[in-house]
């Protein structure tokens, strides 16, 4: 990293392993480029035309050679594929117990909401050494959340949720880029991720709480928008109760099973007719255009909280 950098800082748990794969592919690339260049130079000099009437003998080709140079690249790409895919696969799911933060992209800023109620723009404060799961959506066009120092990137799409997770391993401030072209000031949609000591992070969270927590906000919307009239907690209402539901499989009317995750809850709120949970009358109205993305995020945070009530009644569920 000193002098002229060839890679960004390694500031997350996965950065080093991604770089190792990168070094390997770089070595493969350099090796084959060098081999091909050298062979071509050698052959071009060795077999240069010495007289204009030269008529070299024809060579048909060679099956063993063809097999050899089909097998070698096949083997190498197989190694890269297995290595890279297993790395990707391992890192595709956030670890259990990751802290959750909501991210909303809009032209041309990043809006961040911590479940405790802290909101920030173009800055994301996270604690060192704890896995952080981001649940992201966009208010307008497609954006892309990219932190080079963490080697993570994920598109941020309107109308659906994508998730991304990382665990920071270095204190400091790291650049956050929008990596999907999103209009006039795309290049200005830059923020920073600030990694703090966990106790400092707690202090930061407590220090400037600008409003209620997302769950509290969600609870209010749950009342005000009329969700609570049907979705009674004891399950006696026309709509399902949300106790212990979040993250669990639910059966649909078409016989399929789906996990009640952020995306599915969002879909149920906006386009309830698309996929209905079996056992209930099809009376849920669409809230398309009536709830903002922020409000839906808060509702999800609340439903998530309800989900933990039954799941872990002893530990945290004190509602």
């Amino acid at each position: 990293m000193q002098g002229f950098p060839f890679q960004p800082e390694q500031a997350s748990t996965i950065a080093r392993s991604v770089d190792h794969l990168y070094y390997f592919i770089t070595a493969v690339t350099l090796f084959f480029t060098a081999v091909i260049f050298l062979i071509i130079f050698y052959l071009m000099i060795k077999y240069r035309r010495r007289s204009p009437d030269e008529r070299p003998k024809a060579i048909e080709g060679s099956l063993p050679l063809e097999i050899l140079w089909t097998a070698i690249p096949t083997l190498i790409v197989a190694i890269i594929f297995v290595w890279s895919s297993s790395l990707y696969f391992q890192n595709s799911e956030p670890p259990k117990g990751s802290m959750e933060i909501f991210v909303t992209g809009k032209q041309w800023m990043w809006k961040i909401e911590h479940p405790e109620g802290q909101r920030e723009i173009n800055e994301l404060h996270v604690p060192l050494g704890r896995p952080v799961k981001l649940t992201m959506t966009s208010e307008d066009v497609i954006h892309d959340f990219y932190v080079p120092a963490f080697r993570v990137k994920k598109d941020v799409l309107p109308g659906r949720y994508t998730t991304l997770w990382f665990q920071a391993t270095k204190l400091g401030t790291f650049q956050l880029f929008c990596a999907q072209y999103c209009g006039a000031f795309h290049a200005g949609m830059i923020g920073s991720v600030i990694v703090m000591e966990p106790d400092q992070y707690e202090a930061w969270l407590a220090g400037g709480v600008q409003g209620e927590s997302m769950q509290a906000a969600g609870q209010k919307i749950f009342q005000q928008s009329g969700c609570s009239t049907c979705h009674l907690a004891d399950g006696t209402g026309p709509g399902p109760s949300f106790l212990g539901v979040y993250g669990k499989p639910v059966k649909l009317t078409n016989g399929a099973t789906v996990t009640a995750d952020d995306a599915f809850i969002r879909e149920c709120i906006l386009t309830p007719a698309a996929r209905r949970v079996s056992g209930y009358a099809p009376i849920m109205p669409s809230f398309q255009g009536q709830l903002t993305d922020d409000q839906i995020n808060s509702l999800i945070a609340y439903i998530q909280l309800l989900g933990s009530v039954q799941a872990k009644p002893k530990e945290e569920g004190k509602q």
Partner: protein
Amino acid sequence: MSTATLDPRVHTPRNYLNADYGWKSWLFTLDHKRIALLYLVSITFFFIVGGSFAVLMRIHLVEPQGALVQPETYNKLFTMHGIIMIFFFLIPSIPAVLGNFLVPLMIGARDLAFPKLNLLSWYIYIVGGMFTLYSGIAGGVDTGWTFYTPYSSTYSNTQVTAVAIGVFITGFSSILTGLNFIVTIHKMRAPGLTWSRLPLFLWAMYATSLIMVLGTPVLAITLFLLALEHLFHVGIFSPALGGDPLLFQHLFWFYSHPAVYIMILPAMGVVSEIIACFARKRIFGYTIVAYSSVSIAVLGFLVWGHHMFVTGQSVYEGLIFSLLSFLVAIPSAIKVFNWTATLYKGSISYEAPMLYAMGFIGLFTMGGLTGLFLASLATDVHLNGTYFVVAHFHYIMVGGAVMGYLGGIHFWWPKITGRKYPNGWAALAAAIIFIGFNLTFFPQFLLGYLGMPRRYAFYPAEFQVLNVMSSAGATVLGVGYLIPLVYLIWSMRYGPKAEDNPWGATGLEWQTSSPPPTENFAEIPVVTQEAYAYSEEEASGD
């Protein structure tokens, strides 16, 4: 078997160029060779326009805050650069110019199967091109050449629909050219010219034509749906209207990934012809090289999802597209090995076309190998959407395809114009382009791994050094591209007259005069040998 032996040239005999001089004889010509020249002039024009946009971009990026234009203008510059270079230069380059000129000549036919359709395809191309250019000047478009929704369909207030219509129109010219080549290669080969004797350039043209005919309609449909949403707010791609923004990307890349092979396969075909000629050898493993073109064309349709690894698509979808993308690397590698092996025990001369062909192999190798980083899921997550991608596809599409195109132009120039260009200048230009290209785009690989996203009108200061290096390299590259323009134009008037077969090449196109007569051959040749019969024993049979 030799065809009509032409009189020694006392005065210039009738040929397709001097057959008639009026402007009507060009604009209403049905001669595939003249249509090829119409294309040559038009795509050169678009190359200069698209290139000027690139020049402005590289000047702008010398300063982190942007040295030249407002961000909105910069966004229009990279959009128009991409649209013009891809749809109006690269895609038609080798097929519409060299393919048009050579397909009938190389199979021993008098013209393409549908000469009128051929002329129509040029007019369609021009109408689409002018439409796009006009929309570009009157307002411009700022979506990137990829037109991603919902930005393009609902948020951009630039000329999206107009430009999409321009590209839509031009698509038909590709389809018609592809159709014409397929029918011609199937039905009009000279007696004795079996598939296994077909020059590899024709195999490449055939594979390319398949992609044009099968892929382009999907692009047309996609752009049509985009315009429908943009104009009439029919909800297809925009979630606010109930659409799916990723549907657009699936449809778009289903065409646009194979489109990369429309650009590179023809260049591979050209390089096969050049290497065989200047090494005086049959292409090593001819059959495998031919089938690898076809397998690249087929596999190319199955890899589009690798453009979408970070869109939140399912992990398993990612795995499958990653695997298929790695598979495409294999036939490409096989080609490079076979070209290299062709040099073994050859008789190699270093004339300009050969230098371009070697430049192609070098840049294509680097471009192809850097594709491994992007086919690989874990590294693509970091590199997707950065300058690494920009560098990678420029190595393939500019380093590879343009090098191949220029190699082909230099190889067949004596046949096309009947004149020779100064070989020293041509060799110098090849070297300058190779060096300038690497100076321009190699720094972009480094920028990409450092994390600089593409399509940034301004950027954090730590990326400046590499950006300045890239811009400096671009001036070298620019000079490299200008030199051939000068000496090739010069040669048309002042170049020494070319013999019928100045390189001592096999191939039917070299058996007729330079430039060929309008009807190509006095009598249709009969083929008794495989392509590339360069050796003593084979040549003696001639």
